């Protein structure tokens, strides 16, 4: 039935997204970019691709961050075009994609506002994909009047409100039924905002997965696989990144464990085992039954071991992120192999983000004069034979 009814609402948009898929930079175009001598050359090379004239109005020495921001704006524009034409289930699905960025933005804004940075600066840095009108209110909020305002604004006005609520429920003791404003204020002070962000994202991931499951059909199938793998990556990433840091120490394991999403192929047994792990060997042992992840861990373990400091050249080693990006690109590419599901929208956004990362990386390498590293990108839709 999906076959015959999907196109009723979403056929046009799916086709459009697949059309946008052909806009990804090809291997040739990457090669051309990598051969550029300067950023200006790169701008010219990009003009010949699907990116077009988007850098035209920038004054000549373009920093790589501006390129990244402009690319993201382009992505956001295209995304908004899709969003404006979407019907109910798809529109909600697309909103879920923006919520992830909104969480980033909101947390960044709170952090900046608490530290009294100017609103213009803050708004200039946000991810255009996660832009929403209430952001201005947060940025220009008067912190001195207390956290009550922030709390109200966050919980009521923003799309991320529900996640904040679940976050608050988790961090406050269960027995206190009504949370006073005082407590909320103390939460904002005490909780590391980075931890808060990750807990919000975890809540988002779980919510997104639940939503995809209600959609059913191949959307649930494809998205379920992607999200589960993603949440597994998240578990691994949190674990590895907190190794040898304060968060990895035994007294903060509780904090760390709060960040593990309750879905994925690792959940519940694997997550449970990882929860108890505190160093490389124990993590390795916890991952042992999950062959692909254990292999992934082995590949990047040297980067995270304690002995790394000082001895070896870190440039040679791959971090977990490099590997995860590769896997993620692969996952997202596979999503395009099926028709009539929403996974392509997710995959398109994710691949586009990866492509932007690639472009920024190449730009960085070119401006640093280290052309030998321009190859270290994750090409998207690399020709497979």
């Amino acid at each position, binding site marked *: 039935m999906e*076959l*015959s009814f999907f*196109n*009723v609402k979403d*056929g*046009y*948009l*799916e*086709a*459009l*997204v*697949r*059309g*946008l*898929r*052909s*806009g990804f930079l090809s291997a040739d175009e990457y090669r051309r970019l990598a051969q550029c001598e300067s950023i200006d050359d790169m701008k010219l090379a990009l003009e010949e691709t699907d990116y077009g004239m988007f850098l035209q109005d920038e004054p000549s020495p373009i920093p790589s961050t501006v390129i990244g921001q402009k690319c993201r704006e382009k992505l956001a524009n295209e995304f908004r075009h899709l969003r404006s034409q979407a019907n109910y289930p798809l529109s909600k699905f697309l909103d879920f994609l923006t919520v992830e960025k909104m969480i980033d933005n909101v947390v960044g804004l709170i952090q900046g506002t608490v530290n009294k940075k100017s609103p213009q600066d803050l708004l200039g840095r946000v991810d255009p994909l996660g832009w929403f009108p209430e952001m201005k209110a947060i940025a220009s909020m008067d912190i001195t009047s207390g956290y009550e305002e922030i709390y109200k604004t966050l919980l009521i006005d923003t799309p991320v409100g529900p996640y904040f609520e679940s976050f608050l429920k988790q961090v406050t003791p269960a027995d206190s039924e009504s949370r006073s404003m005082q407590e909320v204020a103390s939460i904002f002070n005490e909780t590391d905002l980075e931890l808060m962000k990750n807990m919000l994202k975890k809540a988002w991931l779980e919510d997104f997965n639940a939503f995809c499951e209600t959609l059913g059909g191949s959307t649930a199938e494809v998205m379920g696989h992607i999200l589960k793998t993603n949440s597994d990556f998240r578990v691994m990433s949190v674990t590895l990144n907190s190794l040898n840091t304060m968060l990895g120490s035994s007294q903060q394991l509780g904090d760390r464990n709060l960040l593990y999403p309750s879905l994925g192929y690792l959940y519940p047994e694997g997550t449970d085992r990882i929860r108890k792990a505190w160093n490389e060997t124990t993590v390795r042992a916890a991952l042992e039954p999950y062959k692909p992840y254990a292999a992934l861990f082995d590949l990047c373990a040297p980067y995270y071991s304690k002995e790394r400091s000082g001895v070896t050249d870190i440039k040679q080693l791959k971090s977990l992120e490099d590997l995860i990006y590769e896997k993620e690109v692969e996952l997202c590419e596979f999503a395009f192999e099926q*028709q009539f599901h929403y996974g392509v929208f997710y995959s398109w956004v994710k691949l586009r983000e990866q492509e932007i990362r690639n472009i920024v990386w190449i730009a960085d390498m070119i401006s640093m004069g280290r052309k030998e590293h321009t190859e270290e990108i994750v090409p998207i839709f690399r020709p497979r034979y």
Partner: protein
Amino acid sequence: MSAQAFHSWGEVFYHINPYSWAAIGIALSLGLSVLGAAWGIFLTGSSLVGASIKAPRIRSKNLISVIFCEAVAIYGVIIAIIMVNKMQGLSESAPGIYPPEAIAAGYCLFWVGITVGGSNLSCGIAVGVSGSGCALGDAQNPTLFVKMLIVEIFGSALGLFGVIVGIIQANAGNFPKQT
């Protein structure tokens, strides 16, 4: 027809005018075929429109998919015309009493309608889905077009089977000539 009491479903069916059966058959064959064609065009069309935004070159080539769907409607129309031509003569020996040939012909045309309509409806959807895939595939890689077209042709053949079988089926039922 005066008010009568029917004692069983068989009696009810028996008393329905065979021409009415035939007419329902025509309606089904044409209606379902057109529904299938429209559905297919819709499936193909929405994908085609979306895909041709980024790859405008596919738009005229992929009209073939739309034409395949259209053909399904034409099958329905052909069968409907054949069936209409069979509905000739009106012979009623007594009110509510029809000659057996007429009754047989009525049922026959009704089921021809079901055969053709059903097969064309599925054919339309099949061609539509594969046409949508064809449009998307062509937009990415032009060499896929011919391959996808073959798939579509096979899909389209399904409708043709229905039509052929329908014609043979319709030959079995003939209303008695008007005397």
